[in-house]
């Protein structure tokens, strides 16, 4: 039972971080109908920015409240700028071309960032993983029983930050003039322009916002995972994308729900799939094939298996609405 609670907590914590990344995906998809493949890599860049900022602050300042806030804000701002540049230079010129063109471009940017950062030329960090500084000093926040269930302070903090950012986003999109403009652009940017909405600016801002969210999420992720390396964005980004699709891409609460669902599923696969598979293996005599039964090594397959099932059964996502393709 305690085991179960611990897995629930871990899954929830992981899910909220995916959710923040997924929100960026969903927002950008919403306004541009573009799968911003490079989103996870923007997140990775944000983590390195946070790493650098924390390094400059030094050990004594980085874990103060002010220091940690500064780490978050600077890397969010930096990523916002990066998102702006990517949109301006790579996506905007292609806006009216086919969606495939934009997808290939996004993949290209993703590659440039994730592999560019593996070089150790100039300011680029190189491929070797680094430990992210402890800008939030981990301590056990709640301990139940004899360390049966542990809730860490960073889990609570990242959960709260994630919830706050999501609420803020929900209000922005549904309660403000700008949010209304975003939704109009999402429906049809040419008609939105007829309303006097500066479409380019709305899209650019959406990109910046999504990228800043990704940076925040990336730092939370790095605090949890500690290892920072240039390819981290690829996987987190893909999983967040899966979460967004599960929830119905373009749908804000859907992305959050999908992300939490994914976080929980992964956690349970890691926790229990080993047992289940071992059981199954014994029944089906899979041992002879030598299929491995440690759950954690299957973690990465979960997201994609999940994705494929959702796309086959309900391609519009759990919360998405069916839209017929326009002729």
């Amino acid at each position: 039972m305690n085991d179960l609670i611990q897995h629930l907590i871990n899954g929830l914590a992981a899910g909220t971080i995916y959710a923040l990344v997924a929100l960026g995906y969903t927002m950008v998809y919403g306004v541009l109908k573009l799968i911003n493949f490079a989103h996870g890599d923007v997140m990775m860049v944000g983590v390195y920015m946070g790493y650098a900022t924390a390094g400059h602050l030094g050990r004594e300042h980085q874990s103060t409240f002010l220091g940690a806030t500064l780490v978050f804000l600077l890397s969010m701002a930096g990523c916002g700028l990066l998102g702006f540049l990517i949109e301006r230079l790579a996506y905007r010129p292609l806006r009216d071309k086919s969606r495939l063109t934009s997808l290939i471009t996004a993949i290209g940017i993703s590659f440039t960032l994730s592999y560019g950062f593996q070089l150790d030329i100039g300011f680029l960090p190189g491929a070797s993983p680094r430990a992210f500084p402890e800008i939030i000093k981990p301590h056990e926040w709640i301990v139940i029983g004899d360390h049966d269930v542990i809730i860490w302070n960073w889990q609570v903090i990242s959960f709260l930050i994630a919830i706050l950012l999501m609420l803020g986003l929900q209000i922005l999109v549904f309660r403000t003039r700008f949010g209304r403009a975003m939704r109009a652009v999402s429906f049809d940017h040419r008609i939105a322009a007829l309303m006097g909405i500066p479409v380019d600016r709305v899209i650019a801002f959406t990109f910046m916002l999504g990228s800043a969210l990704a940076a925040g999420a990336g730092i939370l992720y790095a605090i949890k995972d500690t290892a920072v390396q240039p390819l981290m964005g690829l996987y987190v980004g893909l999983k967040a994308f899966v979460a967004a699709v599960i929830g119905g891409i373009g749908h804000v609460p859907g992305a959050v729900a999908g992300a939490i669902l994914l976080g929980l599923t992964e956690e349970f696969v890691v926790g229990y799939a080993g047992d289940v598979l071992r059981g199954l293996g014994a029944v089906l005599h899979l041992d002879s094939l030598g299929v491995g039964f440690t759950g954690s090594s299957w973690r990465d397959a979960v997201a994609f298996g999940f994705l494929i099932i959702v796309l086959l059964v309900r391609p519009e996502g759990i919360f998405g609405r069916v839209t017929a393709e326009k002729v």
Partner: protein
Amino acid sequence: MESVAAPRFSGVPGWLRGPLPILLSLPILALAQWATAQAPFLVYIASIVGVNVILAVSLNIVNGMTGQFSIGHAGFMAVGAYIAGKFSLETKDVYLPFMQSVAASDQLMFVFALLLGGAVAAVFGFLVGLPSLRLKGDYLAIVTLGFGEIIRVIVQNTEMFGRALGLSGIPQRSSIFMVMFWVFLTILAARRIASSAHGRSLLAIREDEIAAEAMGVNTTAYKVRAFVISAFFAGVAGGLFAHFVGIINPGSFTFVKSMEIVVMIVAGGLGSTTGSIVAAVFLTLLPEALRSIFTQLGGGDQTLAQRVDQIRMPIYGMLLVALMLLRPQGLFGTKEIWDVAPKWLSRRRKGMR
């Protein structure tokens, strides 16, 4: 001159025209094999080039011709490589008594292995192609990516396939002859598909799926078929790869490999078979050339040469972006080389398509 095209190869009897390209290519291939027999490195490079050409041309059947976008091609390659490699490992010592020599028997077993790998990959191609029933463009792209990753994770967790270490000691039965033969078959298949009614249907799907459907093209069947054919050749490419490298591991078939192939066909021009070939050859040889130049420059120092591999990937990334911004149709667009070649050449090739 324009209205009445002179009959081609007028001296060749009709029954010979189909297999003619194959007959013509045999002596050339034999010559190539002889020429490279004494240069193992050249053979290795040529084999890599050949495998990449197969991968690019086969991916182009899906990406270029149907407008579906697969970014998990390395997954099919992995399936072919592992299945064929495992088969050859298990049957290493099997000698087919009806063959005259051990070498001939080995070659036949090798062909079996390749076909088996290709067939299993084709089954996966069918499975991956099925979602194209319901999914369009970018969604399908992610599904293919997910598929590739799932294959990798499965292999990594399966004892039979050597987990992260992979398979080693696969008999090195491949030859430049065999690689080029499959290159040839792949190109032939792609060209046949492109110029058949099937190919025209695929192109119709690419241009406007809804319209194609309205015209009575069974888009789903064509798309799935394209996936199956494409996966088959990718599987064969994987099998070939396994049999000249001798060692395979999950690291050879990551997302990066898939992207390499995507870059090749995008650069060459989606839908252009010759474009993919040119791009595959060029993009395989370029890093090799740079590597050897840097090795020369750096004397015994290998770091510069190693840099080439590092720098390759970000450059591929930037190349993709630059291509999309400057020339989204790729080098050749959907055209083939002879469409863009100088006039005197294209006139002679008129009617070839």
